């Protein structure tokens, strides 16, 4: 059983490398079109955004399908968002700008669309650095707080996509709808949980009053609610 799961994990890790493999083929056969460097650069960015969306989709899919095993793959998907994001950043720095730092700094200072992209990347970087089970244990409650930033990363990444286009908004629109649904789903779950908690609190109170009336409360609570 364990072996089978590990096997699936290995397969998942391999499958996530297919986009990179296809990109390398396109580079080798010069299939990237007239603006090959931009094509390379945006392909990597696209895949980072796609893996970010997939990572976000794990919990909703899990809740809907009640398939618990999926959460094992969240870490892999998230790390691939980081992997392609890193290649995207490296392509920008090394290939597009040839590490000419003066040109890079002017470009970053003058381009607001890069600021939001950078924000998304820094978040994904932090999440990748703290993605191990060890870090999770060490950070306790703060881990969950930090990893909620993935929503900010998703919004920033979609904005980064939108803002660099002169006009063609169809594709980023598609991603923002996906991000909207994923976020919306989480918000709905959150609201529902809050309502459930309230009802639970009310239920508890009702049981307390009922119990009190019947004089069946345990001693400690009975004492504290003495009139």
């Amino acid at each position, binding site marked *: 059983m364990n072996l089978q799961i590990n096997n699936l994990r290995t397969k998942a890790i391999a499958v996530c490398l297919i986009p990179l493999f296809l990109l390398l083929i396109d580079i080798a056969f010069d299939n990237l079109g007239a603006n090959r460097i931009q094509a390379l650069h945006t392909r990597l960015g696209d895949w980072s955004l796609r893996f970010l969306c997939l990572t976000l989709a794990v919990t909703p899919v899990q809740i809907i399908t009640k398939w618990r095993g999926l959460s094992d793959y969240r870490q892999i998907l998230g790390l691939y968002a980081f992997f392609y994001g890193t290649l995207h950043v490296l392509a920008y720095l090394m290939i597009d700008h040839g590490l000419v730092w003066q040109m890079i700094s002017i470009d970053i200072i003058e381009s607001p669309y*890069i600021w939001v992209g950078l924000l998304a990347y820094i978040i994904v970087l932090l999440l990748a650095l703290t993605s191990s089970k060890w870090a999770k244990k060490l950070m306790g409650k703060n881990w969950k707080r930090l990893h909620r930033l993935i929503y900010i990363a998703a919004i920033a990444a979609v904005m980064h996509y939108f803002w660099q286009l002169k*006009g063609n908004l169809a594709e980023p629109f598609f991603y923002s709808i996906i991000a909207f649904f994923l976020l919306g789903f989480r918000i709905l779950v959150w609201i529902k949980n809050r309502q459930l908690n309230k009802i639970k609190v009310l239920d508890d109170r009702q049981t307390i009053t009922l119990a009190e009336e019947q004089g069946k409360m345990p001693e400690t609570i009975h004492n504290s609610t003495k009139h």
Partner: protein
Amino acid sequence: MIIKSNKEIPASEITDPLIFKERRNIIKAALATMAAAVVDISPTWAEDNNSVWANLPKGDFSDDLLIPTPAESVKNYTNYYEFALNKQDPAKLAQNLRTDSWSVEISGEVEEPGNYYLEDILRQQTLQEHVYRFRCVEGWSMVVPWVGFSLAKLLKAVKPLSTARFVKFTAVHQPEIMPRQRSNAMLEWPYVEGLRIDEAMHPLTILAVGMYGDILPKQNGAPLRLVVPWKYGFKSIKAIVKIELLKKPPITSWSQFAPSEYGFYSNVNPAVAHPRWSQNSERQLGSSFFTPRRRTELFNGYGEQVASLYSGMDLRHFF
């Protein structure tokens, strides 16, 4: 024994690129004639070797030092929003455009307004090759050997009145053939561009009917397009059907769509960033993976010729 020599080739022995090109053309022409005599030439062969305008004289501001971008890149990477919002599809979709018996309406503040057939216009004009830089507002650039004639000469032929201060250009409206016009996507159609009269009269400004020695491909603006090399590419309107001389500046398509992002002037200027991205550098089409971006030049490198048109103007304000 191998004798290694470090002797450099003297400069006098390096073939002048112009002569080299000329020789190649002669060889190409000879080959083409031979091939034509022996077998039926295939259309691709004809296109490559029997170009329509093989050895045109160069325009005054054509730069021989510029290396043209590979023609295939220029043909397959176009912003032609009437056909598609991406850069690849227009190469296929634009082939449906009807460009035969094309006429251009010239009207407004001119002594001789009228509807002129492109054929008749071309009969009066001398075609030249103009190797110009082309810089897109999106941050990429290319070098294109256009075939065209001076816009000033055409305007002078219809005798502008002294009241003519601006020129408005209107592109073709064929919604039945242009899918994005049909669906009313993005901009107000037809596409409109404009220039100040002194910009239109400047010798750098041309109307192009060809590129790379051949007839202009439809996706690149056939049969007649504007080329204003010191401005961002969207000013160089394609498939022109109307030229109007006006007293007031026309409302142009992109500045109507996003006035804070695309101004009337839209001169190439590395110091004035687009609100969302820098204009400091550009990616040259066709460059290898090891070539970094090129630094963008003020007025796209044509400052010597055009800077005086804007003396005393705040280019940050009049972007």
